[in-house]
């Protein structure tokens, strides 16, 4: 361990503007070269802590700050974020909102332009970053045409092009497929080995468990534990499936369906069905057509050919971006709007409690952390006993406890006869819930081997 830490916080306290309590209260923290994993539940202060390392807290967000924070010799409290950007790279949670330019290579070059790199040298740097993140083939593509996972790798490429000495990542694997996550983990491992300080907050710890790492656990804005990284437990939640072995009714059926958001089909000749009281998981690579298939099942996308049948009743749809749903003043009002009842009662009230939202019910959904927002959005769509529930990446930004709560709610709905379809990269979720798994990619959907029930 070097005598000089890469970053250190001493007696550091921070409170957001209009906050009633400190968001961060860190007595003593030292970050060295290598990989540091930041753990903690939704709303624990992980994202705030990460933002200290490049000065977004306090410079961008304002508020009151005390104590001392030093990164690579710079006093964070007196050094602007834009100056720290030459040393500290930051990959944000939401890749859709990080692209500055409309094309891939221009977007990667944005940071290099800001540090006034001579144009002839930029091309090589851009190419190197694209190669390293496995998206060299997307170089000339429009950013708008990329899938969520491809955008996540683009965000990483944009930061790696600047060759930062400290790399901070907030949930960098949340939208990546298995292969993409492995390649990003390999990149982080190589950087950490070569002397970069990599600080990452990530719930998919099973991926990061492959690496040597130090772990910090954040709770209520305080560092409560520092230890070696341990793998998260993967467990299947045993629950009687109404569908398995039973002749339950068909809830939805696709017959010879071709589908896509434009006239060019992404999926062709799809024959699939889902039963009442059954959970079907859609897995597959980024950009493979999972979201297209989900939207077709939900009725948001008309098939280009073929036939889609659905049982009468409400279809609940959770989009990838929970903010598309949340616009009421409180979480409770948001759920009430779906069931047209104020305050929510019965099933809706149970769902709020089940998802651990009772203490947040009176809060504005937009003031919540990413994981809390996701749970609020799930409560908002699943309330009211839908016939079919279609969920796109429901565990995005969720910690283990929140995922367990989601699993309990979904299993209860399955028992009540709801047909559930989930598109996910989360292996743990598939293992815990799926009655059937469908691999979606290359224009087709193929059934995988059934999951054994414990």
């Amino acid at each position, binding site marked *: 361990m070097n005598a000089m830490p890469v970053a250190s916080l001493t007696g550091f306290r921070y409170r957001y503007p209009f906050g009633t309590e400190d968001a961060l209260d860190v007595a003593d923290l030292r970050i060295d070269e290598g990989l540091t994993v930041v753990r903690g539940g939704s709303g624990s202060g992980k994202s705030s802590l990460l933002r200290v390392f490049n000065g977004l807290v306090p410079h961008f967000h304002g508020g009151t700050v005390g104590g001392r924070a030093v990164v690579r010799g710079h006093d964070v409290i007196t050094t602007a974020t834009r100056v720290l950007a030459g040393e500290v790279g930051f990959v*944000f949670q939401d890749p859709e909102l990080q692209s500055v330019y409309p094309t891939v290579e*221009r977007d990667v070059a944005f940071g290099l*332009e800001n540090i006034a790199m001579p144009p002839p040298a930029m*091309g090589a740097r851009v190419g190197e970053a694209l190669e390293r993140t496995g998206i060299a083939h997307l170089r000339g593509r429009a950013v708008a045409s990329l899938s969520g996972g491809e955008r996540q790798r683009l965000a990483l490429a944009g930061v790696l092009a600047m060759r930062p000495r400290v790399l901070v990542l907030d949930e960098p694997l949340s939208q990546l497929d298995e292969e993409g996550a492995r390649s990003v983990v390999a990149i982080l491992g190589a950087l950490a080995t070569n002397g970069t300080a990599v600080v990452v907050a990530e719930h998919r710890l099973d991926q990061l468990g492959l690496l040597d790492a130090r772990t910090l656990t954040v709770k209520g804005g305080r560092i409560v534990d520092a230890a070696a990284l341990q793998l998260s437990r993967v467990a299947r939640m045993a629950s009687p499936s109404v569908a398995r072995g039973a002749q339950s009714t068909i809830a939805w059926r696709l017959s010879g369906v071709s589908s896509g958001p434009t006239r060019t089909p992404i999926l062709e000749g799809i024959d699939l069905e889902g039963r009442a009281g059954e959970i079907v998981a859609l897995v597959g690579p980024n950009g493979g057509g999972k979201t297209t298939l989900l939207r077709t099942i939900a009725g948001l996308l008309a098939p280009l050919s073929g036939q889609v049948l659905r049982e009468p009743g409400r279809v609940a749809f959770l989009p990838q971006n929970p*903010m*598309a749903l949340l616009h009421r003043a409180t979480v409770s009002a948001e759920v009430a709007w779906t069931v047209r009842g104020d305050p929510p009662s019965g099933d809706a009230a149970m769902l709020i409690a089940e998802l651990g939202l009772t203490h947040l019910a009176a809060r504005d959904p937009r003031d919540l952390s990413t994981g809390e927002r996701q749970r609020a959005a799930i409560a908002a769509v699943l309330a009211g006993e839908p016939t079919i529930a279609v969920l796109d990446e429901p565990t995005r930004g969720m910690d283990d406890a929140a995922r367990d709560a989601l699993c309990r709610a979904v299993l209860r709905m399955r028992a009540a006869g709801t047909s559930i379809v989930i598109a996910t990269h989360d292996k743990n979720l598939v293992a815990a819930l799926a009655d059937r798994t469908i691999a979606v990619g290359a224009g087709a959907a193929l059934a995988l081997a059934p999951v054994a029930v414990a």
Partner: protein
Amino acid sequence: MNPRALAAWSISGITISLASGNPVYRVLVLLCALNVLVALRRPDVSLRGMGIALVVAALIAITVTTLASHTGAHAFLALPSGIPVLGGPLTIEAVLFGASTGVGIAAAVLAAAPLSLVLMPNSLVDALPSGLARTGAAIGTALNLIPGIARSATEIRDAQRMRGWRPRRVREWPDLAVPVVLTALEGSITLAEAMEARGYGAGPRTHYADVVWGRADVAVCVVAPAAAIAFVALRVAGVIGDWYPFPDVSLPPVSVAGVACCLALAIPALVWRR
């Protein structure tokens, strides 16, 4: 193709189309601009939407002028004088003046169109002088947010529909408008945060795509502005005549010098290749 040269050409085309009310010169500018668009537009660009919009704009200009202007020697219909504003004779002169106005609008729009339909997005922003680089990047980023807002509006509409939202009255539209506005604001803040984290505003910037000048670019940059300056000078000197159909319609005057100035605007299609 140099964005600065194309910008100089566009300004020249707009100048000529607005410097005279003579429909002959306006039609010539329109044809030159159309030629440039057809020859040089990006492969992913369709001209259909813009074409329809321009035809509609021209028809509106003709209709409004015809119905509101009741002067001219050749009346072809008379509306009852009791109708406010619209009542009175409708004349061939008014129709022709409206058509000339419509052609002028179309020519000016088509002269500006290559900046967005020929160049890649942000090329023009990249071509701004270094003193305006930060402002240009901010403008480019703001423009980049627009398609995102449109996408999020669709996403929000779909999500709300799936929760039973069926707007029947105007007062129910805030259920869509409020989240769209809030999401756009949040998106802007997050993007600003991401830009700051990548060093935006740290000091002087460079450009990934350095602006290069070729012979063809120089030719466009010299010929088009020279033609515009000559046209304006000749117009002021009275060599290039204007046209006004009232009170009695007449053929527009045409000068060889004026036609030559307009045809010089065809130069991009001659020297640039896509």
